[in-house]
């Protein structure tokens, strides 16, 4: 079992002929993901990594029955690409693109919620269900199938944790990178709920960082509604206030969003908090 994507997922790639889109489509196909279609306006009829390319998402969905989409288009076209996917009936969207304007995301997330469509991202590494489907850019070779669910706002820090778990022989049910932007389609609580409901997940690793209050909200949710053990980590303990640390959402403002406050919230919710990334897999190894 897993969450969000699996062997049955019929994936469409928006921006399939771009540099990133083409490269990662080949990687996803090689991993065994069912990539059924691609979309690049004006390039319909071509093939990319063996995948048929269409001019519009609606055409691609009609022709192939795609039910999930991954978006690699440039930031200025991303909001439109998401709306096009929703309009065509896609139910699960993963948006990899970084640098989407916040006002675009406010409008888009509102529209997604109205239509009940799940979107992961933007500015995220995507989702991987090891051994079944890779929807995004998480390297497949650092993962293995198993029963630990991973959710994170980070990219490479997540890879670190996945790699460390795999090296210890601890497999993962699904890993979800929810992205580092201030306005996200999917929040920690959404993924925690999905892992709680997934019979294939026994333990959850949650990797947060400075900025916003989603970790605090997630901690309260863990306390109230999650019965599975949770291991946590917060990045950015040395980050100064008022400075954006790479991710658009990683900023301490008005005294809110500090690592200290988030660690305290985690601990108060009974989450086992690692002091540094190497410790995450150590703690998980002791618990499984």
């Amino acid at each position, binding site marked *: 079992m897993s969450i969000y994507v699996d062997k049955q997922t019929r994936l469409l790639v928006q921006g399939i002929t771009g540099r990133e889109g083409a490269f990662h489509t080949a990687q996803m196909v090689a991993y065994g993901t069912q990539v059924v279609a691609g979309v690049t306006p004006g390039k319909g009829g071509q093939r990319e990594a063996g995948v048929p390319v269409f001019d519009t998402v609606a055409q691609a969905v009609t022709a192939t029955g795609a039910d999930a989409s991954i978006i690699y288009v440039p930031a200025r076209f991303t909001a439109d690409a998401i709306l096009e996917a929703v309009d065509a009936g896609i139910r699960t969207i993963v948006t990899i693109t970084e640098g989407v304007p916040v006002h675009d995301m406010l409008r888009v997330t509102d529209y997604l919620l109205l239509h009940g469509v799940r979107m992961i991202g933007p500015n995220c590494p995507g989702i991987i269900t090891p051994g079944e489907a890779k929807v995004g850019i998480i390297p497949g070779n650092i993962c293995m199938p198993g029963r630990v669910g991973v959710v994170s706002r980070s990219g490479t820090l997540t890879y670190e944790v996945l790699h460390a778990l795999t090296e210890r022989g601890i497999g993962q049910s699904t890993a979800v990178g929810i992205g580092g932007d*201030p306005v996200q389609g999917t929040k920690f609580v959404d993924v925690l709920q999905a892992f709680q409901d997934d019979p294939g997940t026994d333990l959850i690793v949650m990797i947060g960082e400075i900025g916003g209050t989603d970790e605090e909200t997630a901690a309260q949710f863990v306390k109230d509604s999650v019965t599975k053990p949770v291991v946590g980590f917060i990045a950015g303990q040395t980050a100064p206030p008022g400075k954006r*640390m790479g991710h658009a959402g990683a900023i301490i403002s008005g005294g809110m969003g500090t690592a200290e406050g988030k660690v305290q919230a985690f601990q108060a919710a009974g989450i086992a908090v690692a002091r540094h990334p190497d410790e995450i897999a150590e703690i998980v190894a002791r618990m499984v």
Partner: protein
Amino acid sequence: MNIHEYQAKRLFGRYGLPVPVGDVATSPEEARAIAARLGGRVVVKAQVLTGGRGKAGGVKLAKDPQEAADRAAEILGMDIKGFTVRQVLIDPAVAIAKELYLSIIQDRAARRSVIIASAEGGMDIEEVAVTQPDAVVKVAIDPLLGLQPFQCNQVAFGLGLDPALHRSFAAILNGLYQAYVALDATLVEINPLVILQDGSLMALDGKVNLDDSALYRQPELAAMRDPSDETAAEREAREAGLSYVDLDGSIGCLVNGAGLAMASMDVLKLCGGEPANFLDIGGGAQADKVEKAMRIILADGRVKSVLINIFGGITRGDEVAKGILAAIGNLQTDVPFVVRIVGTNAAEAREILKSANLPTAPTLYEAARLAVAAAAGQ
């Protein structure tokens, strides 16, 4: 990106907000000329990209053009929280009956924009929110519908405004929301929004924070960037497409990925060191980008050692290692490096680095410990 008060107020003026008719001066002579043109008493206000100007003595009253020149001479060149004052705004002084607070900001948790208003203007709104939470009015706006008339009512009644002012207040709120959306702002703030003794409203101060990701479609705003808002190293990094923040410590950090970069800094601290910077070189870690990043880090004379932490994912670790060696070879530096590469082909990467006598470490914790020791000269 942040812009100055005078720029914010000029932008507000375009959206129909009543703003003072002042102008900006870079010398006492200019301040005198502006004050003479305005006539009467003026306020001389330091234009720096930080709060707390009043407390720092950066805002002063002047009764005539000569005093305006004198106050400008005092304020120009002043240091306010590390920012040097290079411009002053000369606004006409006004007779204030009451001060209000009004802003629109993104509520990340609710994924909505929210109006924040308070009858306690001129104060730090975060302080008001803590000490008198009932004095703060919050109204969330649906981005697909925009600001609705009933919401203007909610705010106006929430503030206890005289009903005679409701119409002009709604016009200000609508103009402010229009500006917020049209400028791709992450914050628009009027503090204080004043009720003058003649009963009219005026935006006496103005603050606009802009979304860096939207600057591509806001060329006029992008051109307003004040170089003093970032250090030379931060500017160089931004232009090179690197994400970089200056810090006060002695250990340089070069990492791929923002979360991993923050975590690497945290581990340095845990090992007793202090990071000199945050630096995310992004994916790939090609030799030219690594070299550029190293040059920026080493330009900081306080850097005593450098921790390089790379996760080799789709980019293979051995290729990254070759890139690092090429970069170090071109740099000619005595500063010690500690390199950690993990992930795809990490073992090959370690062999390559070892053969070049670069210290490597298998774990982040161990690498951080070595970098801290190296900075201490061990």
